[in-house]
């Protein structure tokens, strides 16, 4: 009988509490194995930091921090500088956020505050599917559909109205910082929406009822009461999306133009950290070349870790306050 043997085991455990006796009971083994797996995750994280650090030392020793300020990128002359890539990464990510944040926050307000629960659930489901679309698919659509569309319908009116601004200077060939920013905005919107929606739903319903009872309209309740209450969490979702936009590789690589130069115009091609790694790492030869690419990966890693760390804390504080 199974039950009898368990009882016998438990009784046996009670009489001899030795480590090996408990080990035989299976408890200690499963504890140790699962603990080992947990600790190994910490080790993997340490390993990531170590590998990035160790493998980028050559660049750090050769160029020091001037690597980050130099815009020379000439593998033939063994001269490397990260500035054009850092610039491109930041510009595309911020451009993406400028478009994605209003869109995402508005949509999350609709899903959490206005839409009937059933409709909200269906729409949220579709938006989560959007988040599951692989980035290479976004790149594919970016190259063949979006970039021609931007060239035909978006850039001519932009140039005729805002053409005097330096950010819309020059000829537009299609692959550009602007295209990358737009693709990024589409990619990060689902993340803003799904996190912001949950944060908004965590706002206690009494807050809304009180405002409505005082005679506020639905919109005033949302804008003056619910949003300030949830603002920290919404900022968290925005930071989360920003980290994603900074690290996004494939879609950016396919539409950004891959030209390492700094230009004020959004219509000119650029480059990003992730894109240069994707393009050049497999063929990179020479220690300094590889080390420079890894150093940029380390910069990207540090940036996204810090932003993610802040975002998680923001989201946790709001959700804790809400529940």
């Amino acid at each position, binding site marked *: 009988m199974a039950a009898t043997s368990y009882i016998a085991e438990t009784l046996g455990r009670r009489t001899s509490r030795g480590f090996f006796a408990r080990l035989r009971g299976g408890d200690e083994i499963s504890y140790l194995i699962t603990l080992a797996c947990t600790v190994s995750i910490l080790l993997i994280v340490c390993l990531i930091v170590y590998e*990035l650090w160790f493998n980028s030392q050559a660049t750090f020793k050769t160029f020091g921090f001037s690597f980050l300020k130099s815009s020379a990128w000439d593998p033939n002359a063994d001269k490397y500088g990260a500035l054009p890539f850092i610039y491109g990464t930041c510009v595309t990510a911020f451009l993406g956020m400028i478009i994605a944040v209003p869109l995402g926050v508005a949509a999350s307000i609709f899903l959490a505050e206005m839409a009937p629960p059933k409709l909200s659930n269906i729409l949220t489901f579709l938006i989560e599917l959007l988040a599951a679309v692989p980035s290479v698919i976004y790149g594919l659509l970016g190259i063949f559909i979006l970039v021609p569309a931007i060239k035909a319908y978006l850039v001519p009116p932009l140039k005729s109205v805002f053409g005097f601004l330096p950010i819309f200077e020059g000829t537009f060939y299609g692959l550009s910082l602007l295209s990358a920013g737009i693709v990024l905005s589409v990619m990060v919107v689902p993340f803003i929406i799904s996190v912001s929606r949950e944060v908004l739903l965590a706002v206690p319903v009494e807050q809304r009822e009180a405002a409505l009872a005082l005679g506020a309209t639905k919109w005033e309740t949302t804008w003056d009461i619910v949003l300030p209450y949830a603002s920290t969490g919404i900022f968290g979702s925005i930071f989360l999306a920003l980290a994603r936009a900074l690290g996004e590789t*494939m879609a950016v690589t396919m539409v950004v133009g891959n030209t390492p130069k700094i230009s004020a115009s959004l219509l000119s091609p650029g480059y990003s950290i992730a894109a240069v790694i994707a393009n050049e790492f497999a063929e990179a030869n020479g220690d300094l070349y590889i080390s420079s690419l890894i150093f940029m990966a380390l910069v990207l890693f540090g940036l996204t870790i810090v932003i993610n760390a802040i975002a998680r804390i923001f989201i946790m504080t709001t959700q804790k306050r809400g529940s």
Partner: protein
Amino acid sequence: MMMEISTSRRFINGFMLTLSGICTVLVVSVLFFILGYLLIHGATSLNWDFFTKLPKPAGETGGGMANAIVGSGKVLLLATVIGVPIGFLAGVFLAEYSGKTFAFAIRYVVDLLNGVPSIVIGIVAYALVVRPMHHFSALAGGTALGIMMIPIAVRTTEEFLRSVPVNIREGAMALGATKATTIFTVVIPAAISGLTSGMMLNLARVAGETAPLLFTALGNQYWSKGYLAPIATLPVMIYNYAISPEEDLHKQAWAAGFVLLTLVLVINVSARLIIARGPSAQRR
């Protein structure tokens, strides 16, 4: 008693509510745009050769991606073998054994790991596997994707184990089962449908990853022998074909994109349906 609301406030109210609705429709319509274009360009470029033939050498038209489809399967199998056990067992630890503070710290680290850009994980896999072995391999690609699977594996396991009611555990304990027996014969089976669909979502997420495979699995024009050779995968093929200048390769890229997206979305939808209907139905 009704309060009078001025026309301007009423107007702003209606206007902003409509605007937020329009934004939602705009975002959701992107999904249908994606599906529509892939259906138009992808499904029409799809033929039987795509699933059965090898890629043709440069310059020739025709051919397929049979090796990339099998290659993706092999890399994903490796990723699952590497990532899921570690993530699953760590999740068991967090849900069943760990103290509160330690669990919080681990959860935080796991979330951070989840936020690391995939290209950075690719570089780490390169340094860990490709460099010591001196060549690109399916194993390196599997390692990269495996590391990427760990965070979601941990979080879903913990979440679904925690959703198993306490009285089921107490019942098992009362019958004299040890804690380990309770966990592995009672709690985990009770949560199994949620756990499986969580892992399916996890797999679907890394199935479309391209960046970490570029310099770990690399690619291959032919069938790849074993797990220690460079191997073709669907996402990398899509990328390479999409940026090539040849029209025929663009068609193949669309076809491959269609196959990949169909696969990812079918897994996603079915996993989410299982979670929504399962006994351990939860918020997520």
